[in-house]
């Protein structure tokens, strides 16, 4: 092996680690180059969405299930943290953990019955869950503040250091997003991850390979709910205000669109999908009113032409082309 080949092989071998390091460095220096609070506000929102989408992609893209209700767990996380820190005066960090545990239990209790369903039925059940949670947030005035929202949520802090401006929040939120990214990348590269891909491919085959399909689905559902809950807690502490509007079914639909754009079963794609759909309304503000139309249109187009998702679809197309060309070359 020449030194150049060795170098390329090293890069190939450590491609995941190197990409994560590269991304971390880019994010570390991003606020130095770009300190416009508005832009940072947007990238921070991307981080929050990315955390949910990472978890949701495990559930949709890897385990091959569908959820049109993850905004419910996002909302439970946000309101949970709001109520815990303001009403019960629990410090924010333990509150976040406590809320995540409660949401995990809720997801477990809901997941056990509804994950017996699949396809359209599962989609409807999760949609129903979202409606229920949204309605409770809206109607239970004394606890949630009702339609006018819940304000006065404290910022997260370490001692005197408060995460209260965009730059500090940038590091907080992207720190969480990167940890989430790393955990997901590790998971999918393990036996558990392969079991999940098997499950998405064919349940009978997965069982024959030793995958406990029922348990796996429930575990991933709970895990994705925990990701959404933590994102919700961060959301609440970041804006110090939450209202039921942020957790309706259109949010759930947008989350699914982010997964689809990024690509089913692509962890990196999740970041891309979250970024694109978060930024899209900014790029075409004249379409603001028609946002849901545009998002819906994108969803339909992607599913029609690249059902594996935009990024995954393109990557797989290139891979297939390359493999076929190599075969042709070998034959010639």
């Amino acid at each position: 092996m020449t030194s150049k080949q060795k170098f390329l092989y090293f890069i190939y071998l450590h491609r995941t680690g190197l990409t994560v390091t590269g991304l971390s460095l880019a994010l570390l220096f991003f606020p130095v180059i770009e300190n416009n609070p508005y832009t940072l506000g947007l990238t921070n929102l991307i981080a929050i969405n990315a955390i949910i989408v990472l978890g949701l992609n495990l559930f949709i893209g890897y385990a091959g299930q569908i959820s049109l209700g993850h905004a419910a767990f996002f909302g439970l996380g946000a309101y949970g943290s709001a109520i815990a820190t303001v009403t019960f005066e629990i410090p924010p960090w333990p509150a976040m953990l406590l809320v995540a545990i409660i949401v995990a239990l809720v997801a477990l209790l809901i997941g056990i019955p509804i994950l017996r369903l699949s396809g359209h039925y599962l989609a409807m059940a999760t949609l129903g869950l979202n409606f229920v949670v949204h309605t409770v947030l809206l109607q239970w005035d004394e606890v949630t503040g009702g339609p006018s929202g819940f304000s006065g949520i404290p910022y997260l802090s370490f001692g005197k250091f408060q995460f209260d401006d965009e730059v500090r929040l940038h590091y907080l939120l992207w720190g969480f997003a990167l940890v989430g990214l790393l955990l997901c990348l590790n998971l999918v590269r393990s036996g558990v991850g392969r079991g999940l891909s098997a499950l998405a491919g064919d349940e009978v085959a997965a069982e024959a390979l030793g995958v406990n399909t029922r348990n796996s689905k429930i575990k991933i559902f709970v895990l994705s709910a925990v990701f959404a809950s933590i994102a919700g807690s961060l959301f609440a502490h970041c804006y110090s205000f939450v209202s039921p509007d942020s957790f309706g079914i259109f949010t759930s639909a947008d989350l699914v669109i982010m997964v689809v754009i990024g690509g089913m079963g692509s962890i990196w794609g999740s970041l891309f999908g979250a970024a694109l759909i978060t930024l899209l309304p900014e790029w075409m503000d004249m379409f603001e009113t028609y946002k849901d139309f545009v998002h819906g249109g994108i969803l339909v187009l992607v599913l029609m032409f690249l059902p594996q998702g935009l990024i995954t679809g393109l990557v797989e197309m290139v891979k297939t082309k390359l493999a076929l060309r190599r075969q042709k070359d070998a034959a010639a």
Partner: protein
Amino acid sequence: MLQLDQVSKKFGGLPALSDVSFTVPKGKLTALIGPNGAGKSTLINCITGVLEPSSGKIQFQQQQIDNLPAYQISRLGISRTFQNLKIFPRLTVLDNVLTGLTNEGGNSMLLAMLRLPDLRHRERQLRLRALESLDRFGLEDKANWPAGILAYGDKKRVELARATVGKPQLILLDEPVAGLNAEETAAVGEQLRLLRSAGHTMLLVEHDMDLVMEIADQVVVLDSGKGIATGTPDEVRRNPLVLEAYLGRMDATA
């Protein structure tokens, strides 16, 4: 190693299997044959836990397995291939074979997410084993291809590699050469012989008589859900019941 004792399966009152009994001895290749609709696939599905027998007992290494779910039966060391291919077209060939090692990758989600050095080491070992297995089946230069674009014969080989990579105690092969041409059939036959000489125990469901007669140690014949004969290929070939039920008809159509 595997013992079936009066296994029956009814679908809504219609008997698909009635009182089938036989034993698959360790280290031997047992072939299960029978005309279409004889109940071979139903039997395989009962053994692997896809279906639960209506009555009767299935024992694997002295343990009763007919009441276990499919994934637990797999974890006991029974692997299988499928009649109509169940590979994962979007995964690479290597990843497909790695799914055959799911049981050995550990199933703690938390540990997987932390990916401590111990797990990393084990993952590397599993990868090496998967690559070795690809080598054995002549797929090494296609390791990174999406499995969906492979030719049919190669897909069958991927499934064989996946079924054998975990060093299972018992391998169930559901028509491994169906749809292959003569040359490919010979290649798979060669693989099966190699597996048998490596000491694997196998149960082979197959229509290809030449292959069965050539490599089986023991043949079990099913007809209309009943076991009508068990014996060496020669004994079975001479059995008048079998000739009538199966080989006679084969000759007429061949």
